């Protein structure tokens, strides 16, 4: 038991199949009620798709596992209704400091720009995130969350999957059109389907200690290379909610995990680090190794893999749960369109392509961090220490210091869903880019761009004066909403005012939108439901926008 957290116990309810003795067919089943499976289930249920979630347990994540939730994941969590709960409970931070021996050599700010709703990162114990998601899930009448339901066999076929599920009342059978697998790194389903996940194990061990203490260290990420209190290895310190501090000690491959977990081994390490007689209490201790690997494809017919089951990375960079939450955000809108018959199944291949691209970027960055943190040869160690030594005085070397490149969303520049630019734009909002946030006023009230876009296709047309928009363009914009896949059109303008046809107006009162999107009067962006840019132009034309929509949904001929 933890001293700062009481694990909730969720009620097991006998499934209707076992009550009635008949098998049922569902549109979507999600296996695994971790942070990723729940995010996907909530997003689908919110968009009107009924979902069954099966989980073999009846509580949240035991022990402290995931800690850091990045800006992009928070923006997705906002759209599923748990962003505020996470940010209220979590510890927000943007600054990271890196020390070599006893000197600070480098610091970074994850959010160098002002005017974003969410911070670069929050630290929050994983069990809180899951608890908030479960609460949200239980508010949704079309989300059937079943605890103590363990999948014991799976048969996939071209109409979906047949699952055998074990509960305290025995085994029942369940049919689903679509199966979302979110049962984590040690996935039972992946094994049952005989699917490979390839990559490499890193020959190193790390000790996690979660410690309860009152400390006035700032809410920053502190990382030490070769500190005096833990020579030759690295140490990471993070503040979490409830005065719990995460300390991560690199131990080396030779360390004995069972020995290292013993309090008599752990306490002296922490005392040496804190360097004083401050009181603290051990909340959680574990020793882990890690792997960087991914599945070849995240789609196998009507089975979709999300999160750790599909890809795993080293923890340096917080690219695990953060990328998993982006997986489901990428998947849900596509699956909904396919289920409604509005897009071909090949749209789901783009889920795999885009998230494999992101997974490869995450694996590359976390592998590079790992190689810097734990050099594999004498030469590699010499280069690493040369960088850290030069970093004190020289900017170029500071840029090479790699104690973890923290989770940021991928620019899906290679995606076949993008419509390439035909005009020139400055800045980063290229086709495939995740949208930058900006403060706006909507209907006269303060709001954030990223709170107002997403969950449907949108066209953002930048104009100098909303009231001056010509009637024909206004009608054409409005008409984008009358289609099987509607596009909601919005005007973005530095000026307040009401637009013809009742078109909504986002007032770019700080000019951040214009700056970040290189917007000029006439500039239009087509935005995907997952807040990535599908296409952009310097002038609005219905045909171009519709062609880009067709392309973004695999409906183009």
């Amino acid at each position, binding site marked *: 038991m933890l001293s700062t957290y009481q694990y909730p116990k969720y009620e097991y309810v006998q499934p209707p199949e076992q009550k009635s003795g008949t098998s049922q067919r569902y549109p979507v089943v999600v296996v695994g009620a971790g942070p990723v499976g729940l995010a996907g289930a909530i997003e689908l249920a919110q968009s009107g798709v009924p979902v069954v979630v099966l989980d073999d347990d009846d509580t949240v994540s035991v022990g402290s596992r995931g800690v850091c939730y990045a800006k992009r994941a928070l923006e997705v969590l906002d759209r599923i209704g748990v962003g505020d709960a996470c940010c209220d409970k979590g510890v927000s931070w943007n600054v990271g400091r890196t020390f070599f021996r006893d000197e600070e050599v480098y610091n970074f700010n994850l959010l160098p720009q002002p005017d974003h709703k969410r911070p670069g990162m929050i630290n929050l114990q994983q069990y809180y995130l899951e608890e908030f998601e479960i609460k949200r899930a239980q508010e949704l009448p079309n989300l059937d969350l079943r605890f103590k339901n363990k999948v014991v066999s799976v048969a996939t076929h071209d109409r979906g999957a047949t699952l055998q599920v074990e509960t305290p009342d025995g085994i029942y059978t369940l049919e689903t059109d679509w199966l979302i697998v979110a049962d984590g790194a040690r996935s039972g389903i992946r094994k049952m389907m005989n699917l490979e996940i390839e990559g490499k194990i890193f020959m190193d061990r790390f000790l996690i200690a979660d410690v309860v203490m009152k400390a006035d260290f700032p809410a920053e990420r502190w990382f030490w290379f070769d500190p005096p209190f833990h020579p030759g290895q690295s140490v990471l310190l993070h503040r979490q909610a409830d005065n719990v501090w995460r300390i991560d000690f690199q131990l080396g491959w030779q360390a004995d995990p069972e020995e290292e977990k013993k309090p008599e081994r752990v306490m002296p390490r922490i005392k040496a680090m804190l360097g004083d007689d401050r009181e603290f209490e051990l909340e959680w201790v574990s020793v882990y190794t890690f792997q960087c690997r991914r599945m070849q494809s995240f789609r196998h017919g009507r089975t979709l893999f999300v999160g750790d089951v599909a890809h795993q990375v080293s923890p340096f960079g917080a690219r695990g749960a953060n990328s998993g939450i982006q997986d489901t955000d990428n998947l849900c809108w596509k699956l909904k369109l396919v289920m409604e018959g509005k897009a071909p199944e090949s749209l789901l291949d783009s889920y795999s392509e885009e998230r494999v691209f992101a997974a490869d970027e995450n694996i590359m960055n976390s592998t590079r961090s790992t*190689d*810097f943190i734990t050099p594999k*040869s*004498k030469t590699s160690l010499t280069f690493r220490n040369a960088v850290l*030594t030069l970093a004190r005085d020289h900017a*170029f*070397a500071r840029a090479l210091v790699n104690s973890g*490149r923290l989770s940021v969303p991928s620019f899906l520049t290679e995606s076949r869903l993008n419509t390439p630019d035909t005009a020139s734009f400055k800045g980063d909002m290229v086709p495939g880019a995740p949208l930058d946030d900006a403060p706006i006023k909507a209907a006269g009230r303060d709001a954030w761009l990223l709170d107002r876009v997403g969950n449907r296709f949108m066209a953002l047309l930048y104009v100098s004066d909303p009231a001056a928009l010509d009637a024909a363009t206004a009608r054409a914009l409005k008409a984008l909403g009358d289609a099987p896949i509607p596009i909601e059109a919005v005007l973005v303008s530095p000026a307040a005012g009401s637009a013809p046809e009742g078109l909504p107006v986002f007032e770019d009162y700080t000019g951040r939108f214009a700056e970040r999107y290189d917007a000029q009067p006439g500039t239009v962006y087509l935005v995907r439901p997952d807040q990535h840019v599908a296409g952009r132009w310097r002038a609005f034309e219905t045909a171009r926008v519709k062609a880009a929509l067709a392309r973004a949904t695999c409906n183009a001929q």
Partner: protein
Amino acid sequence: MPLNVKANFFEPGKRYFRAFSPGDDFYEALIETHRDLSDEQSAMVNAKLVLLLANHIGDISILREAMKLAREGV
């Protein structure tokens, strides 16, 4: 022109969205160059690398400045 000690890595034709990417691309290539080499072989590779890059830079005043900085504190 003095020795440039600001971040300066790039690759022609490649677009970067994150400030850390070009430096990390270089560093990975550097470490990869030494993969599976003995310490002695690596020292030889490093020496050759310094000579090749020194010739490319050419300006001996810059090289003197770099050599001085490299030796500091060692």
